[in-house]
């Protein structure tokens, strides 16, 4: 599903974020990307989501070399992938319902289908009663679930999550990972970047450990 070959990523001022990363994530996998802050976890996810381009190397997603993608092809790739951002990236002037609906509206889906899909995903995440709330009136955990709901609404084949438990207490964090586990059980490939060792130990999943931009396990 996701293949990376000898990926290097340098930023201006000779800062090396990733060095010679080669990895393979199969369809239906649940993978943790771990490492301390600054190890390159977010950079790796950003490259998978085409938010950035590698300095060197190839990234193949679903059989396509996305490291060579033209600007106009990126939106189509992103519609097939879900991304849960560390800072949620919700639109605070829109309701929970509209935030989730927006992800579907941009694909040209009919209003009727959008309504059905949003209600379904809200029910799945236990957020029906929050549909008409604005994000800032919700707790951190609820906002996180809205962000996940928005990513899931597109029914993506791959779900990427960057530190999805970073702002949550251990109990809520565990709930979120259980949720990802459930999503994965339904067939979605899940990649979660986290520095939380307790989580990784609790769920015995495949883990890719990064240290100073290199894979160490």
């Amino acid at each position: 599903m996701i293949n990376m070959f000898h990926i290097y990523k340098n930023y201006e001022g000779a800062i090396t974020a990733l060095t010679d990363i080669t990895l393979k994530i199969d369809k239906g996998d649940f993978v943790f990307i771990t490492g301390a802050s600054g190890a390159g976890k977010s950079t790796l996810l950003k490259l998978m989501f085409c938010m950035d381009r590698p300095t060197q190397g190839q990234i193949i997603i679903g059989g396509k070399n996305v490291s060579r993608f033209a600007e106009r092809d990126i939106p189509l790739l992103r519609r097939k992938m879900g991304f849960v951002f560390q800072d949620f990236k919700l639109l605070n002037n829109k309701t929970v319902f509209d935030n989730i609906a927006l992800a579907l509206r941009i694909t040209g889906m009919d209003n009727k289908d959008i309504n059905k899909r949003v209600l379904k995903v809200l029910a799945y995440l236990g957020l029906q009663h929050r549909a008409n709330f604005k994000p800032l009136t919700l707790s951190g955990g609820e906002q996180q679930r809205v962000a996940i709901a928005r990513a899931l609404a597109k029914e993506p084949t791959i779900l990427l999550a960057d530190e999805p438990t970073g702002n949550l207490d251990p109990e809520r964090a565990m709930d979120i990972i259980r949720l990802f586990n459930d999503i994965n059980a339904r067939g979605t490939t899940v990649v979660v970047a986290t520095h939380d060792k307790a989580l990784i130990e609790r769920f015995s999943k495949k883990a890719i450990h990064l240290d100073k931009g290199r894979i160490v396990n």
Partner: protein
Amino acid sequence: MNYLKWLIYFFSEAFQSIKNNLWTTSITVVTIAISLAVCGLFVGIFVNINKTLNNMGGQIQVVAYLKDGLSNDVVASTRQEIARMPEVDSLEYISKEKAFSLFKNDLKGHNGILEGLNAAPFPASLEIRVKKELLRNPEGIHGFISKLKIFNGIEDVQYGQEWVDRLFAFIRFVEVFALMMGSFLIMATIFIVSNTIRLAIYARREEVEIMSLLGATNVFIRAPFLIKGIIEGFLGASLATGMLYLASLILIIKTPPLFASLVLMPYSIGYISLWLVAIGVIFGMIGSSISLRKFLKN
């Protein structure tokens, strides 16, 4: 059908955004209005000055004095030939007697001066009005004068050369000045409008970023902003039309009659508003697409 659905969505997003950002929208609209009004005022005054100057040019009269003692046949053929010249608009023959009677008329009340003059002392002449096209440049009128001088029956040609040359020099100066000022004003207007819109978009940069991350195409992100830009341009232009109309009403009252023609609206208010709205809409569109391009690239 799909396009219609998206169009409805884009418009509703644009109106929603105007409603949510009423303050920044108002600033943008007022900025566009003031910029367009200043531009419009300048163009209006320039058009009026140009019109006035051209009218003055239209009053240029060429007088060709005929030699004394010409036979009626020669006078008639000279008249005909000159009347047929492409530069000539109209022509009037002033006989020696008519010239004298016109002179007498001018000196009414001072008849003493004319005592002792029993024959007509003035030569016969042709008063020629030239076509307006000829007045666009001094070379045209000079060429016409030299052609007239070739005629056998013509003694001399007068047309107030110095005055004509000065008028042409002044018209040319006004045109160059207007072109420069106009260019500066238009550039400044585009700059101000696109920057005002850029600030409004900057305030919503997070929204643009999130939509792009969700997989929205550039068209999908850009369309509501573009529509909003067009609406702002339209509102700004309407406001500018009102401001110009009001300004012209006040100026007409306050300006001395001699200069009144300079502050009159050179075209009908409908015509002016049509132009302003078209320019406002284009400015709004250009302004928002310039600003958006920068954000989408990032």
